[in-house]
């Protein structure tokens, strides 16, 4: 399959590298030193228990890629409005686009410009990041889920699932991908907000009953927004998610990591989105409002002094 990966960072680089290794025609769209290194030395993927280098096309100019069968859209959400339009030349009559991003608004943003029927919302669970230019380090094996918004086992979705599975990626085809996105969003928006503002990882922070309560209250707010929008979220989501987070080993979510390092953060796609969608549908979100205001000054990163 002819595949373009928009954003070859932790998520895109890992998926793109695995798909290239299993024989697909993959083009990575990347930038800067990372791009230079991939062009010169190939893309190196370090997985739990294995590592490999794969030769893969890489460019910073989508116009060089031409039409593809599948686009994986894996940039940070704050880049969406700059890059979505640049994908138009890659769209053929049957091109599918899977979004693997945080938040719940990306598929709509892409749909507006690239055609809503071409978009398959996806979710990604793993921990992977650019370790050094050209090198992706995957701490936990990638697991993905995606599907058609209108709940059909389309031929294209089945075909795409096959190429992911053939590449060794644990893949689930979801009949209700928006619910999957929201389940992740309810947890992550709350977690990203409180861990960043507390500058403390979940494992330590959630030992404090006061902080656990804030985390749960923030999840309840996002859950209420989702339910008001008609998303089929389970009523036990907050309790289930708390247990899920408690069961994970110590980790740092990407927004906390970005905030701590002074890089731009996905605040708009996290608390910002909870607030915006809550306002649209008349649900109050006080905790997310506070977290958003506290984190807003550093949203675009902190310039190095």
């Amino acid at each position, binding site marked *: 399959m002819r595949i373009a990966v928009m954003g070859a960072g932790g998520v895109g680089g890992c998926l793109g590298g695995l798909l290239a290794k299993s024989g697909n025609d993959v083009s990575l769209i990347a930038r800067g030193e990372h791009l230079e290194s991939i062009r010169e030395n190939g893309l190196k993927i370090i997985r739990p228990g294995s590592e490999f280098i794969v030769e893969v096309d890489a460019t910073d100019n989508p116009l060089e890629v031409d039409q593809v069968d599948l686009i994986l859209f894996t940039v940070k959400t704050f880049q969406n409005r700059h890059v979505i339009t640049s994908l138009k030349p890659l769209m053929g009559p049957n091109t599918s686009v899977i979004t693997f991003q945080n938040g719940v608004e990306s598929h709509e943003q892409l749909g507006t410009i690239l055609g809503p029927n071409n978009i398959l919302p996806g979710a990604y669970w793993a921990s992977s990041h650019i370790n050094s230019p050209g090198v992706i380090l995957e701490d936990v094996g990638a697991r993905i889920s995606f599907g058609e918004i209108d709940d059909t086992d389309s031929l294209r979705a089945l075909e795409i699932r096959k190429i992911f599975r053939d590449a060794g990626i644990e893949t689930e085809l979801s009949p209700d991908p928006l619910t999957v996105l929201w389940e992740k969003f309810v947890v992550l928006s709350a977690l990203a907000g*409180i861990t960043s503002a507390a500058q403390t990882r979940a494992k330590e922070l959630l030992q*404090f009953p*006061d*902080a656990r309560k804030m985390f749960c209250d923030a999840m309840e707010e996002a859950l209420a927004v989702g339910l008001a929008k008609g998303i089929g979220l389970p009523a036990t989501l907050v309790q289930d998610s708390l247990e899920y987070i408690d069961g994970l080993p110590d980790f740092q979510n990407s927004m906390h990591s970005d905030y701590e390092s002074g890089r731009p953060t996905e605040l708009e796609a996290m608390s910002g989105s909870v607030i915006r969608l809550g306002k649209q549908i008349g649900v109050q979100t006080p905790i997310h409002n506070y977290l958003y*205001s*506290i984190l*807003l000054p550093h949203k675009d990163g902190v310039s190095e002094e």
Partner: protein
Amino acid sequence: MKIAVMGAGAIGGCFGGLLAKRGLDVTLVARGDHLHAIQQKGLQVIHPDGKYSIDVKATDDPSEVGPVDLIILSVKTYQNEQAIPMMKPLIERDSAVITLQNGIESPAEVGQAYGPERVLPGVAYLLCNIDSPGVVRQRAPVARMTFGEANGNQSVRAIELHDTFSKAGIEADLSEDIMRSLWSKLLYNTPANGLACASRLTPRAFFDYPEGNALFHTAFQEVAKVATASGTPLGDLDIQGAMKLVAQRPLDGRGSMQTDLEAGRPLELEAIVGAVGRIGRKVNVATPLMDLLYALLLPHKNGHQGDD
């Protein structure tokens, strides 16, 4: 008059130093390197108008001091639990205690241990810090404080203390509503420190963002409501005054708790932020923003010195 200063940090050092300089019988109760330096070289005070050195008694053992007429309690609030019991040898029938600390709970804590009639709550208004062991830096030319009897009486002892302070060059105000002074300082101090610590900006820098400005206003309202419900009415004028105080701060001026946070030292989180939520729960006032700030800062409460 015989005076003991419990906690000869920046505040205790500056006020204790001024009283000793005036010739009063002052003993500083301190610890560690700071104590050793004072014992060896006297207390050095760097004042905007110049430096002075005072040969003042200093010890870490209050039983060496014996009963005094006045104790100034100026330890960090999280040291109260240790410091208040240590004061026992200093106390006799007529000993008075002035608390010069952040928060509003210290007078009650001292009162519980030694009787509420001893306690004159106080507030220090003085920018100062410890420069190095034995050296305190007073950043404002005049050392100001407000104190008074909890019941508002202009008692003989209060008037005497006021006279003593004035003669030592301390700009002291004898208040008839001292709890209002304590709450007024907390009204400002809680949002300034809590929001600055959470946002990792100085109070003024965060205030200059529209969203930060709105959060300051919400925070001031929460503290004012708790103060009002617990018997000290603070209203819109007080909130406007506090907003103005933040607006006038220098852009790079940090709150005391923020300085401690950045240095990895223990925080006065309970006295400055936690107290508002705790008291709010007793008087049925919701404090969602204070509760959030408290929860966010809890992991840093005991400091990070000695961490990896």
